[in-house]
């Protein structure tokens, strides 16, 4: 199913005329498929978005919706890895600052990785090497991209540890990861990814493994560092609270596709996809009065090998029967622009969705 990368985008999807137009990062029709014995797992199936410098994009969705695969795809970590002798099949275009990454020379991407784009992983204990000191790992990351001697690099490492708020950085630089607490490890990893001042930072569930109090510290840190370095940030999370804290734009994924995308305010206040409503309704909120009951999404996430035909969300959607002619079960809805920079993929007419949101969903939240 690896189609040659289609240039141009589907109807209504964001189009940029010149490749890598003015956006710093532009992803066009990205597909990441994994062949397995059971069939082709379409983890990401046609995803497009843009991101400017200094802005934050939040990607939300359930596990298995393709969030992390997207980020690994951008970082170019899939082509290198093999999955049971078979490689991932990637198509589409990823333009980073005027360079197309998927068709670029792997050596070139290797130079960009870590320098122009960096990543913060979810679990710092497995992302840091247990055998080397924190300092050594940061120094390595710095010296790969900068021709400096060890002393300078070490100074830089201490400086970064200090910047991310590790106490006594000149001492802790010689500690091993196991000597750090969870929050400190995450800080150390942030220091490592920021050591080369990357212009694109991808944070994949950066705070999921942490306690709320530490999470608050880390979120503040990411925000401050973004301001300081002016990087573009992609935050991947399942926690709507975290994206609301960080993101300017929001992309909601379901079954490997984007179902809704837009400015964070739009997606939170005027969501136009039933899945987004479901996410908002499933979440108990501290800033509201106690709800009597949560409004869960029924059923469970779909299998990526055998996505439901038509709209992938239709078996779980309470409004699947609203559009006529069973169209939800036969035709896959395209992302259509429903407002300024606000896209959603749903068969219901905009009036229907607006009415359902204001009359049925919003009052219950």
């Amino acid at each position, binding site marked *: 199913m690896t189609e040659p990368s289609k240039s141009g985008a589907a109807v209504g999807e964001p189009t940029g005329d010149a490749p890598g137009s003015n956006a710093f990062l532009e992803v066009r029709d990205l597909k990441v498929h994994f062949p397995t014995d059971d069939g082709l797992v379409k983890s990401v199936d046609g995803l497009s978005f843009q991101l400017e410098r200094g802005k934050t994009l939040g990607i939300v969705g359930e596990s298995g919706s393709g969030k992390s695969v997207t980020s690994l795809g951008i970082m170019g970590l899939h082509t290198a890895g093999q999955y049971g002798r078979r490689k991932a099949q990637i198509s589409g275009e990823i333009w980073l600052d005027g360079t197309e990454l998927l068709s670029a020379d792997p050596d070139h991407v290797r130079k960009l990785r870590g320098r122009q784009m960096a990543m913060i992983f979810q679990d710092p204990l497995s992302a840091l090497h247990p055998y080397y000191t924190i300092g050594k790992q940061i120094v390595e990351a710095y010296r790969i991209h900068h021709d400096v001697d060890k002393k300078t690099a070490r100074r830089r490492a201490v400086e970064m540890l200090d910047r991310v708020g590790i106490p006594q950085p000149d001492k802790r630089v010689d500690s091993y990861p196991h000597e750090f607490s969870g929050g400190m490890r995450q800080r150390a990893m942030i220091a490592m990814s920021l050591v080369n001042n990357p212009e694109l930072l991808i944070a994949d569930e950066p705070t999921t493994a942490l306690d709320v109090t530490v999470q608050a510290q880390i979120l503040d840190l990411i925000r401050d560092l973004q301001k300081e370095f002016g990087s573009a940030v992609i935050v991947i999370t399942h926690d709507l609270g975290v994206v609301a804290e960080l993101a300017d734009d929001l992309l909601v994924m379901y079954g490997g596709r984007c179902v809704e995308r837009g400015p964070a305010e739009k997606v939170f206040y005027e969501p136009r996809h039933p899945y987004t409503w479901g996410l908002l309704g499933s979440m108990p909120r501290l800033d509201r009065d*106690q709800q009597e009951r949560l409004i869960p999404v029924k059923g469970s996430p779909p299998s990526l090998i055998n996505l439901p035909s038509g709209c992938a969300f239709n078996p779980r959607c309470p409004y699947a029967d609203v559009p006529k002619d069973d169209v939800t079960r036969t035709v896959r809805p395209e992302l259509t622009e429903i407002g300024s920079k606000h896209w959603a993929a749903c068969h219901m007419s905009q009036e229907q969705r607006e009415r359902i949101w204001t009359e049925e969903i919003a009052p219950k939240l």
Partner: protein
Amino acid sequence: MSDEAKDKTTGKAENAASGIPAQSDGTQEKSGGTATLTKDAAPGETLLKVTGLQKHFPIKKGLLQRQVGAVRAVDGIDFEVRSGETLGVVGESGCGKSTMGRLITRLLEPTAGTVEFQGKDITHLGVGGMRPMRRDVQMIFQDPYSSLNPRHTIGTIVSAPFKLQGVEPEGGVKKEVQRLLSVVGLNPEHYNRYPHEFSGGQRQRIGIARALALSPKLVVADEPVSALDVSIQAQVVNLLDDLQQELGLTYVIIAHDLSVVRHVSDRIAVMYLGKIMELADRDLLYKSPMHPYTKALMSAVPIPDPARRGAKSERILLKGDVPSPIAPPSGCRFHTRCWKATQVCTTTEPPLKELRPGQQVACHHPENFEDQAPQDVVLLSAAKEAAELVSEDALAESAATSAAVAAEVAETDADADSGAGAGAGAGADADSGAGARADSGAGADVDSGAGTEEPPAQEK
């Protein structure tokens, strides 16, 4: 808690205790129906009572495995669980909440203290002694992947409690298991399937069905939803809710997610380093938390509202990490990170006192309430550093309300001149904090039960 209240509750517990043997036999005989659960403890009576509970895990070193120290996972906690209620337990990782759960279900042997279930001391019962109690106390585990044996079918897993307890349900085990599966929202035809054929949410439902098999009275759920996706989380939370209403279950729900805990609990215990810092009714705790730690914990929860993005001023950032439970700080355990800590906090451990009906707090300088140690106004240097991380708004608000409380105290209590004076003085320094919002505000919120103010907004 006052002595009177204590007497009352133990009295009730004893009453309940006298009814146990007959009751458990009764359940056994007609255990055909989980739904026909007979309750001997009326709602509101004490089902579980924990006094001075401790669990120290020894650290052994050297050739002779001499004990060189101990991890004080749970270090002296007291609480009760009333029949029919849900007690939520929150805290950061390592605060001892899971250990506490395993102590009250007696999966671990306490180092000291007592656990009374329905008035019966079960602290040191052996395996045999515990067996009859196991029917009444069940546990739901966090990880639905490792808590189900991958080599057993769902039928075997859910019927295990019947086999272990020698219970023959009416209509046969298979029928009962299938009924349980449908109660938790699974297809009864899945009886012969294996755990790997189910998704995380469905597995968690299997765990719940197993816990419900013997019509327990108390269900201890350790992080029941934290391994699940948001949309599935809501399904399981609603299921637990429904089951409680139908079967009159009592829950102890241990979780780190404060929004989930607020949603499910009637009362909430906040733990820190093996101690309970605050134990209060849900609305009181969320509307006017008294312990600075509770306040910091709640302000740290990210609010899913982009309008608040970057609203740092509302957040109380705690400095550093949780200290080691091997050598916890002296006095109040929170004093190393508290922005209100004074000398007394380093020396005297504040007792868990009921400061307001339904709200027990262990703090010398509580928020939203009169200062418990008003004479002690000099902040520790660590507290001053910590205060730098607390926004000025929060401090000013705390000071303003503490002055208000002090004024109110002066009005109501003519003898309190000195105390109120000190409180007001401290309030002006923005250092002390006898509380915010005074009694009037909190009272109104509780009465209406639907105050429009959300807790973090109070800091504005």
